[in-house]
């Protein structure tokens, strides 16, 4: 018989470590046709980082994302990056991109001020134009100013910047310090069906509410959350590296290392919580790793709600869950040994 259960798990997760140097750098070049080129050392691993960095540059330059050409991950031509790690790209690299774009803006404002008869600090970038704040009719196309900067003023509109969250040393006596610059928060709720005769756990639905600061690209945030939940389901129910008595892996292939397929995925409802972090680019923090942090805990809580047993070693395979059900509620299950 299938028994339905629900479980909740909450988490917080650190973004932008500060225990050691953690720099990202970027160069933004505004071209004479009004487009821009962004150089960044970070790499795209499918998460959409380059889209988000292009959006950040576009926002700072008042142009469209499609106007930004992103050159990435090539140490011949781009700045070195600390890495697409630690859920830091949007936050750390994003700040460097925003600062680099602002450096390029400064040059363009200096050049456009005399052309529009105002001080540089009275200008803003919007709709592919440089315009007097609150007087959009007094404007020049961005490309025209970029050309003027290059060809007449001899000041090409190139900005480079580095951002490094301020390093805070740990007090060696107390172990106290400030290891990260900011934090994100999330809650996930899992609904599961547990078959009390086979131990099989089916995840029916997961609701996921995540704080990531400003969601620069909500669809990518949703994709990250869904992907993280898939990993969390693997962690909760399936994935396990097994060794024989000689320490050799028994399942070094994807036939026997079991990961979820699309058929194992539940319905997912994503809620991106409204928030703004003043230390991040346009208020953004990050979302990558945090997405898979609460999933397994929520599922294990849901199993407890459904059949009254606590599984304390992962993955909660059907065999393990059935053994716990047979042992009776309240007993703790030890790791099952491999043959």
């Amino acid at each position, binding site marked *: 018989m299938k028994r339905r259960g629900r479980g909740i798990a909450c988490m917080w997760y650190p973004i932008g470590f500060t225990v050691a140097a953690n720099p990202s750098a970027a160069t933004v070049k505004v071209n004479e046709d009004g487009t821009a080129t962004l150089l960044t050392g970070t790499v795209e691993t499918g998460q959409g980082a380059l889209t988000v960095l292009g959006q950040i540059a576009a926002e700072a330059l008042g142009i469209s994302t499609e106007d930004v050409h992103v050159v990435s991950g090539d140490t011949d031509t781009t700045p070195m990056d600390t890495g697409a790690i630690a859920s830091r790209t949007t936050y750390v690299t994003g700040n460097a991109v925003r600062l680099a774009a602002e450096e390029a803006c400064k040059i363009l404002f200096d050049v456009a001020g005399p052309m529009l008869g105002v001080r540089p600090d009275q200008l803003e970038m919007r709709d592919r134009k440089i315009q007097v704040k609150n007087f959009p009719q007094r404007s020049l196309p961005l490309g025209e100013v970029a050309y003027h900067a290059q060809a007449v003023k001899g000041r090409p509109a190139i900005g480079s910047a580095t951002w490094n969250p301020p390093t805070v040393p740990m007090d060696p006596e107390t172990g106290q310090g400030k290891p990260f610059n900011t934090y994100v928060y999330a809650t996930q709720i899992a609904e599961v069906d547990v078959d009390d005769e086979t131990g*099989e756990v089916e995840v029916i639905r997961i609701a996921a509410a995540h704080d990531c600061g400003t969601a620069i690209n909500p669809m990518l945030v949703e994709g990250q959350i869904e992907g993280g939940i898939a990993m969390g389901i693997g962690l909760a129910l399936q994935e396990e590296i097994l060794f024989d008595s000689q320490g050799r892996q028994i399942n070094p292939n994807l036939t026997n290392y079991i990961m979820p397929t699309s058929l194992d995925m539940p319905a997912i409802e994503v809620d991106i919580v409204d928030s703004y972090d003043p230390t991040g680019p346009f208020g953004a923090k990050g979302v990558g790793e945090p997405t898979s942090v609460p999933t397994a805990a929520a599922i294990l809580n849901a199993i407890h709600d459904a059949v009254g047993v606590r599984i304390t070693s992962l993955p909660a395979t059907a065999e393990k869950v059935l053994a716990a059900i047979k042992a009776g509620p309240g007993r703790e299950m030890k790791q099952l040994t491999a043959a």
Partner: protein
Amino acid sequence: MKAFDVVVAKNAGEALALLAAHGARAKLLAGGTDLLVDLKSAAHVPGVVVDISRAMDLAGIELTEHGLRIGALATHTAVMRSPLVREYFPALVDASHTVGAVQTRNLGTLAGNLITCVPSMDGGPPLLALEAIVTLASSAGRREMPLGEFFVGPRKTALKPDEMLLDIVIPRKNLGKPTAFLKFGLRKGQALALVNVAASAWIDPKRQVFVEPRIALGAVAPTVIRAPKAEAWLEGRPATPESMAEAGRIAAGEAKPISDFRASAGYRRDLIQVLTARALAQAAAQAASKRKETSR
């Protein structure tokens, strides 16, 4: 991969002639979903691969005077789409549906599933529970045998080196026999069976008892097996949850599951018991709903 020759046979007759000429040196290629994996890893590759994938006279699924005939080239997708299979043997659709992924089902054949003869095959249990007959042929002639005798051991069948499987026939007496197939794997998609079970049975409408119950178990013995003791016990018993649970208990005792890293033998026995009872219950429910349809 070592080098080998490929010869295309356009029909069954050409394939049999090539098998007669090359004997044990030859291997047949239909969907290739198992053979190509073997060719890449095996130390001994065949001298000749006889490609029968275009021998369309082997592909049909049709009703004959003997029953439902499934040709050797019928893919899992063809089985799933066949109106005849869907009408008479939906359990076979369920089994083919759990084989591999869409691509595997588009290429892989039901007959190939039987010929590779791994204990966890999904095509075997429903066919065994429906008492299917296979036709084997060589240039010397044909012979027929019950599927249970075709399975000899893990990756070992009754096929001789110069023989090929022509078709699978589910006998006419079992057309529309209520049958259920259940598979338990470590996940839902692209999973190998830890245990799979098929059960077929008629229900006597007056006495509400099992008639000719047949139970087949996969992945719990060197080959797919029947559970004759459970079948004999169930014959003539009422279709109640208690009797189905007892049949499951008996069937679990007839299997010889192993313990490995996927599951313990004890857990596999638990699964046999549960899945057998559930498959019987589903077959009984099918019988009840068919009766309702005909009485309308």
